[in-house]
C-alpha cells in the first residue's frame, strides 16, 4: 500500500506529541513501518506545534511535505488554516472548533481571521468537531484531543477495536475509562 501521511497540529501543551505516539504505536502494532517526526524544546512553550506520522510497507522520509497529507488533525482552528496547504486536494481535515489567540493577536499586532471553518470547508473535505464541549460533557475536559482522534479514526484504515486497545495502553492508567469514552464519542460523530 502507498504510505499514509498524517499531520497533527495544535498549540504547545494540547497533546499533539501524545496523539502522534498513540497513532504511531497503533500503526506499528498493525505491522506497518512507522516514522514519526516531532517538535521539542522552545517551540513547545505555547507556540504552533506540528508532528508528522507516516506509515506503510516502507517509509523513507519522516516528515509530511506540502501537498502530501492524507489527514490533517488540528486541535485549534487557526493551526488548521496555517497548515492547510500541506493537505492533498482529496485529503481530509479534522478540526477542533476552538479558538486560542496567539500572543500576536493578544497584543494587537495581528487579527484572528474570521470564518476559518468556512475557508477550510471551501478548500478541503472538513469535519468540524466541538471536542471541548463533548469532552466537557463526559466530565474530562482534557480528553478533548482523544475526542478529535476518535473523529479522525474513521478516516484511517485501522479497526475500531485496535484503536481502543492502543488508547488503553498509551494513556495514563487512571484516565483510561474517560479516554475510551472520549474516543467513542468522537468516533460516533457523523461526517
Amino acid at each position, binding site marked *: 500500500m502507498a504510505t499514509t501521511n498524517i499531520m497533527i497540529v495544535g*498549540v*504547545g501543551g494540547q497533546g499533539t506529541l501524545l496523539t502522534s*505516539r498513540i497513532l*504511531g*504505536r497503533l500503526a*506499528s502494532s498493525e505491522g506497518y*513501518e*512507522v*516514522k*514519526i*517526526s*516531532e*517538535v*521539542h*524544546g*522552545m*517551540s*513547545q*512553550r*505555547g*507556540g*504552533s506545534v506540528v508532528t508528522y506520522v507516516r506509515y506503510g510497507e516502507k*517509509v*523513507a*522520509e*519522516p*516528515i509530511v*511535505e*506540502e*501537498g502530501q497529507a492524507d489527514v490533517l488533525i488540528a486541535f485549534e482552528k*487557526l*493551526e488548521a*488554516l*496555517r497548515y*492547510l*496547504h500541506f493537505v492533498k486536494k482529496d485529503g481530509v481535515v479534522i478540526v477542533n472548533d476552538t479558538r486560542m*489567540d*496567539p*500572543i*500576536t*493577536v*493578544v*497584543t494587537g*499586532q*495581528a*487579527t*484572528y*481571521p474570521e470564518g476559518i471553518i468556512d*475557508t477550510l470547508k471551501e478548500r478541503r473535505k472538513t469535519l468540524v468537531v466541538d471536542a471541548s464541549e463533548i469532552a466537557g460533557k463526559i466530565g474530562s*475536559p482534557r480528553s478533548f484531543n482523544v475526542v478529535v482522534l476518535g473523529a479522525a479514526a474513521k478516516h484511517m484504515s485501522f479497526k475500531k477495536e485496535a484503536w481502543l486497545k492502543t488508547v488503553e495502553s498509551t494513556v495514563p492508567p487512571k484516565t483510561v475509562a474517560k479516554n475510551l469514552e472520549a474516543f467513542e464519542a468522537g468516533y460516533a460523530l457523523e461526517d
Partner: protein
Amino acid sequence: MAEQKIMLGNEAIARGAYEAGVKVSSAYPGTPSTEISENLVQYDEIYAEWAPNVNVASDPLYTMSYIGVKGGMVLVVADDPGMYSSQNEQDTRMIGRASMIPVVEPSDSQEAKDYFKYAFDLSEKYDTPIILRTTTRLAHSQGMVTLEERVEPVDVPYERDIAKHVMMPAMAIKRHLVVEKRLNDMAADAADMPINRVEMGDKKLGFITCGIAYQYVKEVFPEASVLKIGLVNPLPKKLIEDFAAKVDRLIVFEELEPVIEEQVKSWGIKCEGKELFTRQGEYSANMLREKVLKQDLGIEPAEQVPARPPILCPGCPHRSVYSVLNKLKIHAAGDIGCYTLGAVAPLSVIDTTICMGSSISSLHGMEKAKGKDYIKNWVAVIGDSTFLHTGVNSLMNMVYNKSTGTVIILDNSTTGMTGHQDHAATGKTLKGEATYAIDIYNLVKAMGIDHVYEINAFDLPELEKTIKEEVASDEVSVIITKSPCVLLKGQVFPDKCVPMPEKCKKCGACLRPGCPALTKNADGTISIDANMCNGCGLCMQLCKFDAIKKEAK
C-alpha cells in the same frame, strides 16, 4: 526474533551507547540532544552526568585528536538545520575536519544505534575520538529499532606515556604526524566500511548523500544510484571516484555546508550541489522534485495567518521580572533559556543573545567599550542553570576587571526550556541521587561581590527598588530573583486570579506583560481563562483599581 521498538533518534543513540558497552557519559541538556542523557539514566551499567558540552569544550577537542583514546570515545553533536531551537546552523562536519576528528553520520533511528556502536569500534581501532553527528530531524524522529545485547567492555590498563598524553610542543609535533597518517589510513579503509554504502540502480542519475538527506533521495528516486556516506570525515575518496565514473549525472545532496561537494570537486570530479540547493535550513523531498525533476508541484501558497511564536507560560516568574525591567526601560543582555523569549513583544526587554554565558560577558564588554555611564540602564539576565554552566566564569571576569554592571540571575530552580533537568544547584544528579547543592548566593559572595540580593521574583516593589539602586551604583551587583518554574511539580499557587469587570477602568495595565491566560473583551474589560491561570497574581499586582481578585482554586 530480536525485540523491536519504535525509538526516537536520541533514544536509539542511548541504546547504542548501552549496547556498545559505554561506561561514562557526560552532556548538558540542550535541544536537540537532551533526550540522549535522559534515556541513558535507565541503564545502571552507565555512569551519566550533566556537565558543560562539546562546543564549550572545543579547546580540549582540538588536542584530544592528538592524544587519541584507549578504550573508545564518541562525541555526539546534534546540529540544527532550520534552527528549531538553536542560535546558528553550525555544521559539525566542518568542526570534525578542523579538529581532525573523524565524523560518522546516521540516517534514521536504527542507524543511530548501529553507527554509534560502529563509531565506538572505529575509535578503538584507530585510537581517536569519533564525532557522531546528528541533526534535529533525526534526533526527534521515531523509527523501528532492533535491540541487541550489551557487550561488556574489557578494561584497558592505564599506562604512563608522556609522548602521547602530554601535549607540549615537542610531543605534539610528533603527534600531528600520527593524526595525519590516521586520517589517511581511515580514508583508504573507508571504501570497505559498511557505513559507506553503494546502492547501484539506474546509472543515468547518481546521488552522493548522507544523514537525513538520504531519506529524501530515497523518497523521490527509489530507482536511482546512491552512494550513502556514513563516514563523512575523512571521505572515502576511492569509493566516490568509482561511483562517479559509473553514473552519467552526479548530484551531491547534503544539508547545510558543501562539505562533501567541495572535496569531490577538488578531486576534479564533475558534480552538482549548491548550484541547485540552498545552504540554509532543512532539505525535503519536494526540493528534489522541484530542482532535479523540474516538477511544478502546484502547491498552494500558505495562508497568511497570525504567527504563533512560543511564549512564557502563565505564572512564569520571568514575566514578572521582565515587567519591572520593561517599566524601568532597562535593556538586558540576554542568555539561553526560556527567558530569551523576553526579547519579543510585549516584554521587549532582551537586546542581545549569543550563547550560554554571553549575557554577563556582553555587559562587561559593553562597559569597557562605552564606559560605565553607558550601562546605567542595562543589566545582564541569565538563568540559574546557565549561570552555573558558563556564566560563573564571566562574572569572575567582571569582578577581576573592575566592571560595575548589574547581573540578574533568574533562579527558577531548574533547567526550564529543555524540560526540567537538574543542575549543580538543585541538589540532585542526572541519575536522581542526592548531592550537594551549590548555593548561588554564597558562590557569588565568595567572588568578593558585596551587593548581592535574593528577591522573590513576584515581589514587584522590592525588585523595582533594588534594580533602580543597583544599576545606578558603581559596583558589580547580583540580584538573584527566586521563584520555581511554574511547570515544576510541587510549584502550586493556592489561588487563581478572577477579574471584577465592575471595577475595571480598561487601562490595560494587566495585559501589558502578555500573560496568555488574559484576553481583552470587546468592551475593554478583561477575561482570565480559569484553566490557564496559575494564580501567580502578577496581573493583580499591576492593577491599580483592585479589579482583579484571587479566589481559591
